[in-house]
């Protein structure tokens, strides 16, 4: 179980910046105990070539969970690194995809999620100023918030991957929940080990107060994300959705989920429209 907070610039203008943001993600995921599958064709280190044109994926890595369920119910996470819409490939972009198998040459197999583009098509230029990355994970979960305090919501992004849960909050073997947020859009999808991949939702389903402020008698309501696979599944633990008011940006809150207290980090103002039912909402990520 690990949490990391580090910084990197939002640009591919030179080899150093290109490596800084890639390594912020890649090395942190390893630190959180996910395993690099090291398939052929994986992206290289600091000298690996930068993208040279727009919307270009130049390389990828595949990680896997390392928990007790991995041998029988494997989870693979593919991350592609490249460029967005700015000229000359200078704007970073990340793609993520989750699957239940892989072919050792870079393709996810079995049931797979959508291939999610975490930076929108907006063209953003950004200098050498560093922005924060928050990463938290364990052998059975990962959550990554990138450039979370960048002034553009099209740069700030988030994804999380975790197993579906039993009623007591422990992992089960039904499937994997992929969640994301990018450019003021939320995403959730269930990838099961048996049956078809579920439909993608453009929100993280949750119950959020419409009232701002939403506090009452010294209490603040909050809600774990509830994934859907036709019907609702048990809540997952990486993400909590809150009303905009009452909560302080970038604070860490100790909140109870499944009768257990965990630390959650407020991701700030770029993560909006989480819940999708005409409610002003914000996102907390599990951070421990």
């Amino acid at each position, binding site marked *: 179980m690990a949490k990391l907070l580090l910084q990197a610039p939002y640009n591919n203008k030179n080899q150093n910046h290109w490596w800084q943001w890639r390594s912020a993600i890649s090395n942190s995921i390893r630190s959180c105990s996910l395993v690099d599958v090291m398939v052929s064709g994986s992206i290289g280190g600091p000298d690996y070539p930068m993208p040279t044109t727009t919307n270009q994926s130049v390389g990828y890595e595949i990680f896997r969970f390392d928990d007790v369920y991995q041998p029988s119910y494997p989870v693979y996470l593919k991350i592609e690194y490249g460029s967005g819409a700015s000229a000359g490939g200078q704007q970073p972009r990340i793609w993520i995809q989750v699957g239940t198998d892989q072919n050792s040459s870079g393709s996810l197999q079995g049931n797979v999620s959508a291939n999610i583009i975490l930076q929108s098509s907006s063209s953003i230029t950004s200098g050498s100023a560093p922005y924060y990355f928050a990463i938290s994970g364990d052998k059975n979960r990962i959550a990554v918030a990138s450039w979370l305090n960048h002034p553009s919501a099209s740069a700030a992004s988030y994804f999380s991957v975790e197993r579906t849960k039993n009623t007591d909050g422990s992992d089960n073997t039904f499937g994997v929940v992929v969640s994301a947020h990018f450019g003021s859009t939320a995403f959730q999808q269930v990838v099961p080990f048996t049956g078809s991949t579920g439909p993608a939702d453009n929100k993280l389903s949750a*119950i959020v107060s419409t009232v701002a402020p939403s506090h009452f008698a010294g209490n603040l309501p909050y809600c774990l994300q509830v994934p859907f*696979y*036709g019907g609702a599944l048990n809540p997952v633990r990486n993400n909590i959705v809150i009303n905009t008011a009452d909560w302080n940006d970038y604070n860490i809150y100790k909140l109870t989920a499944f009768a257990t207290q965990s630390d959650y980090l407020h991701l700030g103002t770029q993560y909006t429209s989480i819940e999708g039912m005409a*409610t002003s909402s914000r996102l907390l990520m599990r951070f421990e």
Partner: protein
Amino acid sequence: MPQVITFYTGSQSSDVNFRAWTLALHTALVNSGLTDASASNRINFATVTRSVTLNNDSGFVTYRFNDALQATYPVFIKLGFGSAGGSTVPRLNLSWGTATASSGDLVGETGSVLIWTGGSGMAGTAVQACYAHSSGARTLAVISPDDSTFAAMFAIERLKNVTGSDVGDGFAVIIRTQNNTATTELHTHFPLTGSFREASWKYLLPSQNPSLFNGTQSVSPIYPMAGRIFNPVSCIMMVPTSDVSLFGSWSTQSFNVYNQQINYVLTTGQYTVGTNPTSRTFIRWE
């Protein structure tokens, strides 16, 4: 816990018509199982006349829950019947509280909302209906569900513990007024004290609309909120709008709530609320 439908001519063009719709609503609630609290100065349905004073009630009835918790954690409901912006325009005034005064007013922890607030009046010849379901610890009424102006509903229900049993911690009021304003209000005694009103109904659905996938679809009860999310109440179930084609209006469905199969009936398109997904309303019907 019966369900009752009463009918009335949707008009307030005369005192006779006024008595007809007021008595129809009252009859639906009482026959469905809500207890008439019998305030001494309550409305006389045989002699009451329309209010010539606008935005005023001609009379009222107070009701109460009738369960084992009522003695310790009483819930009272008051319906005021009157005239809105004209003597031919009906007004329905709902209030709730935890005690009654000798005047018939509700006291203690109270709240109120105008269910019918105005409009041009219901068409004189159209037959309207009131669908009511009650028990000792809950009540709901769907009123004029086919009328685009006057369709409204309310439900009042005790809070639940994790197994779905009624508790004395408080009660939830779920309202959809004639102007399609959906609100909820939670009155709580424990662990918090006071009342809190949400400007919308709170329920859990995916953005998929329809939500049907792999043989299952999404339904959600209403979750009361006041500083935290309380266990859901059972009077109302929501579904994505496009799932309605799976059911059909006024079709009865059995949903599993707190490990019990409970019958619900799908109301009309007038009870379409929310966004992403827009959602339709089932009411408990058994």
